[in-house]
């Protein structure tokens, strides 16, 4: 399978990635552009007469926002996994009566537009007192990922052979033990997939942050960007610089996570 005609794979892959990431390059280009060159026609492919103003502003002001975003992202991942992995196990392996209805409800849950959810949460959060807090935001962001997480865990866990589960039962393990020691380790793929999406969705969420954490002391980066979106003027190089700086830690996390997936797959392959 590998070896023979694979020398061209890497250059082609690099080419495809370059095409896909071209808008990102453009974003970086704009982040270094001066005000008067922003709408130059034809545009500069490379920021000649570049300016560091955008980055200076970002590094001065946005680092606390970045920190909050990281906390919110990781918190959302944790909460999503805690809620959805056991539920996926139950749906896949324990065949609850009414499981089909629950699946359907989970699908409907994802159809509700974010703005409607946010408006509904506002009332609940005010009553309960968690508006403008980070845990409140984590809870809200998890609603983006939990139904998806349950569906993904259900799908992946259904693929775990029944024999392994039955063998554990014969050995005397209860459902919790089976879940923790057998099913979960084999679901590494699903765990990484769900974590990835939960983190990315929480990182780029704006609607919940804007409605539920606008007055808070700790705000995520999606709100921090609004520093540069004034009521009359927008500073585009600073906005793009914020996005670039915000992408760096998340990209690092992504690259680290994918290495773990590869290791997990080769280590935990199920042999028939």
């Amino acid at each position: 399978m590998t070896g023979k005609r694979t020398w061209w794979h890497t250059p082609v892959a690099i080419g495809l990635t370059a095409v896909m990431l071209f808008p990102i390059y453009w974003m970086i280009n704009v982040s270094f552009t001066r005000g008067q060159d922003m709408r130059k026609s034809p545009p500069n492919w490379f920021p000649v007469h570049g300016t560091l103003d955008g980055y200076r502003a970002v590094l001065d002001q946005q680092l606390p926002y970045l920190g909050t975003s990281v906390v919110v992202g990781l918190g959302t991942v944790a909460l999503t996994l805690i809620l959805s992995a056991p539920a996926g196990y139950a749906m896949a392996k324990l065949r609850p009566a009414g499981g089909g209805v629950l699946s359907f409800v989970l699908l409907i849950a994802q159809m509700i537009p974010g703005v409607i959810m946010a408006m509904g949460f506002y009332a609940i959060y005010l009553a309960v007192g968690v508006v403008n807090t980070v845990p409140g935001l984590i809870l809200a962001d998890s609603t983006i990922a939990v139904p998806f997480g349950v569906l993904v865990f259900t799908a992946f866990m259904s693929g775990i052979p029944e024999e392994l589960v039955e063998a554990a039962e014969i050995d005397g393990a209860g459902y919790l033990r089976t879940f923790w020691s057998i099913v979960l380790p084999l679901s590494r793929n699903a765990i990484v997939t769900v974590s990835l999406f939960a983190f990315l969705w929480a990182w780029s969420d704006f609607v919940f942050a804007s409605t539920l954490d606008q007055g808070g002391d700790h705000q995520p980066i999606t709100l921090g960007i609004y520093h540069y979106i004034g009521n009359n003027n927008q500073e585009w190089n600073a906005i793009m610089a914020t996005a670039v700086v915000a992408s760096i830690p998340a990209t690092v996390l992504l690259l680290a996570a994918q290495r773990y997936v590869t290791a997990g797959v080769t280590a935990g392959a199920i042999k028939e």
Partner: protein
Amino acid sequence: MDHTTRRRARQQWAAWAFLAPVVVYLIVFYAYPLYRNLDLSLHDYTVRSFVQGGARFTGLDNYRAVLHDPSFAPALLHTAVFTLTSLAFQFAIGMALAVFFRQRFRLSGTLRALFLVPWLLPLIVSASTWSWMLNSDSGVVNSVLHTLGLSPINWLTSPSWSLASVTIANIWIGIPFNLVLLHSGLESIPANIEEAAALDGARPWQRFWWITFPLLRPVSAITLLLGLIYTLKVFDIIWIMTRGGPADSSTTLATWSYRLGFGNLLPAFSPGATVGNLLIVLALIFGLIYIRAQRRQNQP
């Protein structure tokens, strides 16, 4: 017999014990906003009654008004075109990339991770970047067309091109989702099945079409269904790039709902909620089709 029944009962108990947190979560966090949205659409909420209460109950009047509105048919059409085109391209490109990246060549893992970077960006940034690139006068795409000797296209300002432009941007944003899910699905297919087919003399395309693709059906189905639901909800990209214009040429049900409720100086919450509910109904129909297909597949 008695033992089996007890065992099944025990299993049900355990199943619902594991599911209890999610069920509570669903009721608190999804049922309430849904109820509020329904409530908004069944009354006539002016700004005054939104704040003070006492909105007039209007039953299905809002729905009738929305269905008869001249903007409804174009919005529905645009939604269909936008969603189906986005899905088709996102899925096909995602699948092609997933298959390509499955072969473990140098840097495949790193490059595959880099494909997810578009998802890190807040939508205001990615949509704005696409706006900049597609600007009629200072955009890089038109300057490339100019160098190639072609006439520039008014990507965002022409009624004929606005829907295409937002679709392209949406496809770009949707590729990572399809790539990750399909790749994970591919990784779960044991390699020995395909190896056996290769030994039997099957060519790569035949192996893919007759063995890999059918085995990928459950993951493909869920990817398409979720992709459909998420694409139906998309409004940020369109809103930031064209605001649904010019002249409603890129207005979908989602942007129309947003414009009614939040996108103008005088919020019209009831019509906005009504259009939002129609969107949910549309997604529901597809969800039902999916469940029906699943059930048929699971029957022997």
